[in-house]
């Protein structure tokens, strides 16, 4: 494998971890129409990936051949999504029940969030190969947790909650929500050129895995949590809490560890994407790119939190980023036609 290239398995593991983390942190009710909307958004993003695949097959690399506007859009989007992930860590901490270390003398959530940011800084500085290898191992643990949840959910599934009712959130809300959960698409566009295997194989493997995961976790969540969905703040976390296969031992501590690992890898992935884009836009910017990435994401998190940006903003931002490759492909083809 070439230097700084990753296999399709590592590629998929990295992005699926980021998607899984976003879904775990999702707040609010979810019903069948919304779940179908989220799946539709994932399918739309997979179609939006086709121009990116076509560009990559023509040896088009965003880092070297990409226009300044494309790099700038991806940079802004990656910073925004990294900030959104940090906000997810902040908001979801109370649901994960991380015990106090300093007996509340220091803000526990603040300390834990800063520790996570510090670890992300280190992981980002290690580079793509290191995080890709770690992602495969973390994804393995994630799959084990998913199997445990599925096994535990078997006795608690109530299919009648999957039926359409008048009180469910709409299908269109689900599509916007699905785009809002698909922020790793920016990293996908950036890292596609780093794939050592066929870009078609890499893309199909990733999006197929994503659609399967979303479908499975949505099915379990709606059918297990359906009875108390109206009072649940984090439906996917509640589904994991209710799906405990062993009555004698709660698995929340394992889920908490997996949650933190997924958070670190997701944020670090954005940090690496930002580092690459900073290098592409400012070739002389060599040192402290990781530090700049993490600092930018922290600033974005503070700004987005203060502005109380909602799902629609993230959804629109992801949707606009998704059409960027298509615009670029059309522009290049027109240019080629003009040249001829």
């Amino acid at each position: 494998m070439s230097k700084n290239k990753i296999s399709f398995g590592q590629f998929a593991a990295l992005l699926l971890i980021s998607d899984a983390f976003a879904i775990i942190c999702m707040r609010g009710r979810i019903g069948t129409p919304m779940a179908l909307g989220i799946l539709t958004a994932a399918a739309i993003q997979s179609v939006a990936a086709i121009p990116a695949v076509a560009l990559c097959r023509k040896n088009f690399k965003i880092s070297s051949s990409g226009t300044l506007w494309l790099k700038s859009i991806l940079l802004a989007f990656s910073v925004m999504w990294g900030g959104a992930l940090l906000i997810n860590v902040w908001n979801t901490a109370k649901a994960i029940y991380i015990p106090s270390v300093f007996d509340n003398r220091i803000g526990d959530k603040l300390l834990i969030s800063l520790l996570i940011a510090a670890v992300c800084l280190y992981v980002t500085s290690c580079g793509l190969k290191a995080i890709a290898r770690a992602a495969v191992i973390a994804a393995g643990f994630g799959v084990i947790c998913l199997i445990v949840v599925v096994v535990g959910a078997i006795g608690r599934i109530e299919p009648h909650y999957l039926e359409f009712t008048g009180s469910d959130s709409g299908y269109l809300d689900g599509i916007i929500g699905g785009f809002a959960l698909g922020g790793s698409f920016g990293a996908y566009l950036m890292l596609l050129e780093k794939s050592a295997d066929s870009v078609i194989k890499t893309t199909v493997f990733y999006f197929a895995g994503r659609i399967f995961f979303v479908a499975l976790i949505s099915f379990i969540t709606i059918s297990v949590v359906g009875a108390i969905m109206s009072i649940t703040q984090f439906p996917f976390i509640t589904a994991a809490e209710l799906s405990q296969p062993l009555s004698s031992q709660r698995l929340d501590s394992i889920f908490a560890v997996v949650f933190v690992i997924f958070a670190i890898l997701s944020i670090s992935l954005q940090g690496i994407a930002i580092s690459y884009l900073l290098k592409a836009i400012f070739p002389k910017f060599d040192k402290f790119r990781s530090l700049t990435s993490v600092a930018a994401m922290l600033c974005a998190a503070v700004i987005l939190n203060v502005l109380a940006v909602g799902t629609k903003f993230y959804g629109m931002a992801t949707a606009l980023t998704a059409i960027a490759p298509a615009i670029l492909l059309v522009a290049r083809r027109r240019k080629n036609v003009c040249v001829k």
Partner: protein
Amino acid sequence: MRKIIIATIILCSMFLTGCGSADVYDKLYLKTLYITENSDCSARMEFFGDNSQDITAHGSSFEKVRENARISGGKDVFMGHCEVIVLDSVKDPAKLLTKLLNEWRIPPSCYVVCGKDLTTSQYSINVLTIKSAVEQGKAPECDMVTVLGELLGDKKSASVAEFTADGGFRLVTVS
């Protein structure tokens, strides 16, 4: 030199694991919670441990009740292992159970039953009694999620077991 610095930082981070920051005796682990809600709120808490004593606390709200229980017991009350919740004259069971589930972190598998004047008595409900009644079909499924789901559902009511201080048992409907 760089390896020594990194190794030192990693070793120091072990102090952040929280392993030595708390002892099991620093907390009271709630076993059974008896709740009454009239003009004000009161609760009797049973704890795990052979030498533990019940705590009865009163307050204008359940937050006050929990705080007063903490003051009475001298320790923080950990609710993550609670086995039984006994509703003894509660105005809005759905609202109370939602608060217990989301804010007090009562486990979803905790049983919910009703009680008659049990908050002020010394009668202790054994979780094995409830489990046995459910297994024998004498009582309906009454874990927190099932009861709350029925209260939040179309019927807005749930069928649960009711215990009395003289050891009596019957089925009642809460709403």
